[in-house]
């Protein structure tokens, strides 16, 4: 087992459970549900969409909007859209080494995501359309870990190896086609002729490579690269600061004039990660405009120590209800121990107390086995 695999366990848990809706129950992932969510709009709306549109280009984004607008007779239902504005356009000068460290400005730009979601919040007899918009960004992203940098360099070596094999496969035919082009260009009488002939050659080269049978050597080289890439854990070390916020508008009866802000929330997550130690501090505030009884401010802290085959973490979350007539403040404490049996298989033990000590199952004493999927790439944020 590579040391990095276990080091990724606590972060993997963070990354995965951060997608859960905040009010999904306060059983085990309480700390993670307080952490800055990937898509604040989904959390505020209380949805966990199975399919999220993530347009990759401005054209994709325009298509997504037009696609919804085509049948627009009211607020489109069940929209779940997440946009990373920076990554909508290409960045030909940004190599991975330059992205290993980020300034505040580049961190904000490269990590900013905008989430938009709609859902029906009412009933059959009293329909209420909900629209949520959220923004998330990392003010500080830390830096790519030394281990991740070494891995990316190793991956570059593997890609180089397979690329050389591929280059050898196409070299001869490519040479023949280019020599034929040389002969044809001697008879070209205009720039248009030259353009047509080179386009014909480019097309012939493409046809050749697309139909080229994969040799055993090339297949082995690609498999080797893919296997290594699946285990990549692009963790970042150092100081990380994430912020997020969002609003929900509710429109009873789909009437625009009746639309009001019904809920909003804000998150701050700060963390520091070194090879052996890391801590994460979280702060969340959620409020509902009409019913303030469940308005809550959560403050949490998690400390994680990671060794080659095991990791231990301690977490505490304090919850203060801020509205009138609210229940008393609560807190939650847990200690989690993970041990790696082998690649991708962990034994996990959790001991502690949940928020409401009078509720059933408030004593946390859970043991379990978790499976890690190869290829999960963990990034922080």
């Amino acid at each position, binding site marked *: 087992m590579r040391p990095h695999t276990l080091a990724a366990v606590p972060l993997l848990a963070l990354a995965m459970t951060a997608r859960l809706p905040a009010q999904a129950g306060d059983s085990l992932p309480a700390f993670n549900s307080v952490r800055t969510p990937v898509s604040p709009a989904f959390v505020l709306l209380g949805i966990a969409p199975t399919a999220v549109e993530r347009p990759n280009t401005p054209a994709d984004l325009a298509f997504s909007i037009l696609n919804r607008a085509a049948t627009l007779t009211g607020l489109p239902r069940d929209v779940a859209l997440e946009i990373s504005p920076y990554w909508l356009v290409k960045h*030909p000068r*940004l190599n*991975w080494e330059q992205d290993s460290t980020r300034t505040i400005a580049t961190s904000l730009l490269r990590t900013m995501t905008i989430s938009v979601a709609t859902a029906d919040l009412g009933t059959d007899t009293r329909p209420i359309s909900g629209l949520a918009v959220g923004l998330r960004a990392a003010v500080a992203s830390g830096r790519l870990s030394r281990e991740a940098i070494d891995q990316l360099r190793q991956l570059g070596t593997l890609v180089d190896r397979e690329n*050389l094999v*591929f280059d050898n496969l196409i070299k001869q035919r490519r040479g023949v086609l280019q020599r034929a082009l040389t002969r044809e260009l001697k008879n070209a009488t205009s720039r248009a002729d030259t353009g047509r002939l080179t386009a014909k050659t480019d097309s012939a080269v493409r046809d050749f*490579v697309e139909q080229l049978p994969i040799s055993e050597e090339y297949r082995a080289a690609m498999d080797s*690269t893919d296997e290594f890439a699946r285990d990549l854990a692009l963790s970042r070390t150092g100081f990380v600061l994430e912020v997020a916020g969002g609003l929900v508008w509710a429109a009873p009866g789909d009437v625009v004039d009746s639309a009001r802000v019904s809920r909003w929330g804000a998150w701050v997550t700060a963390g520091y990660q070194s090879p052996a130690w890391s801590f994460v501090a979280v702060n969340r505030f959620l409020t509902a405009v009409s019913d303030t009884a469940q308005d809550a401010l959560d403050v949490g802290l998690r400390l994680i120590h990671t060794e080659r085959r095991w990791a231990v973490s301690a977490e505490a979350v304090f919850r203060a209800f801020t509205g009138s007539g609210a229940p008393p403040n609560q807190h939650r404490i847990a200690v989690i121990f993970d041990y790696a049996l082998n690649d991708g298989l962990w034994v996990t033990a959790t001991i502690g107390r949940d928020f409401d000590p009078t509720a059933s199952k408030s004593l946390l004493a859970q043991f379990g086995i978790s499976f890690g999927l190869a290829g999960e790439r963990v990034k922080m944020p």
Partner: protein
Amino acid sequence: MSDAVFITKTEFYKVKPKTPITLSITIGDAQVGATAVNLEGALVGSGADVDDLPIGKSGQDLRDTILDCTTTVKDVNPDTNKTDVTYTLKGGQADQEFSYSADVSMEGGRAIYAITFRLS
């Protein structure tokens, strides 16, 4: 041939008589890639970092020669499926950049660029 995306292009670059040139390659969008560089079919350089690679020897006349570049880009950036490769040729009649881009078809996919520079 696998599920890679292929980009093939022939370009022209004017060199100075009996003067070598240099080639630099940038793999953009924070992706990982490597290039094989062939002059008249002979490998003159390869790797993930091609920076000011000398093409031709001192006094060598590069006119009417062919410089083939094969670049494989592997998608490792979870934020985008875009790949970008920029080839920069210097030392000829003018420095020139040639940029290409392609979206891989799936997360972790490949884009293979077969770019030929006809030196004249």
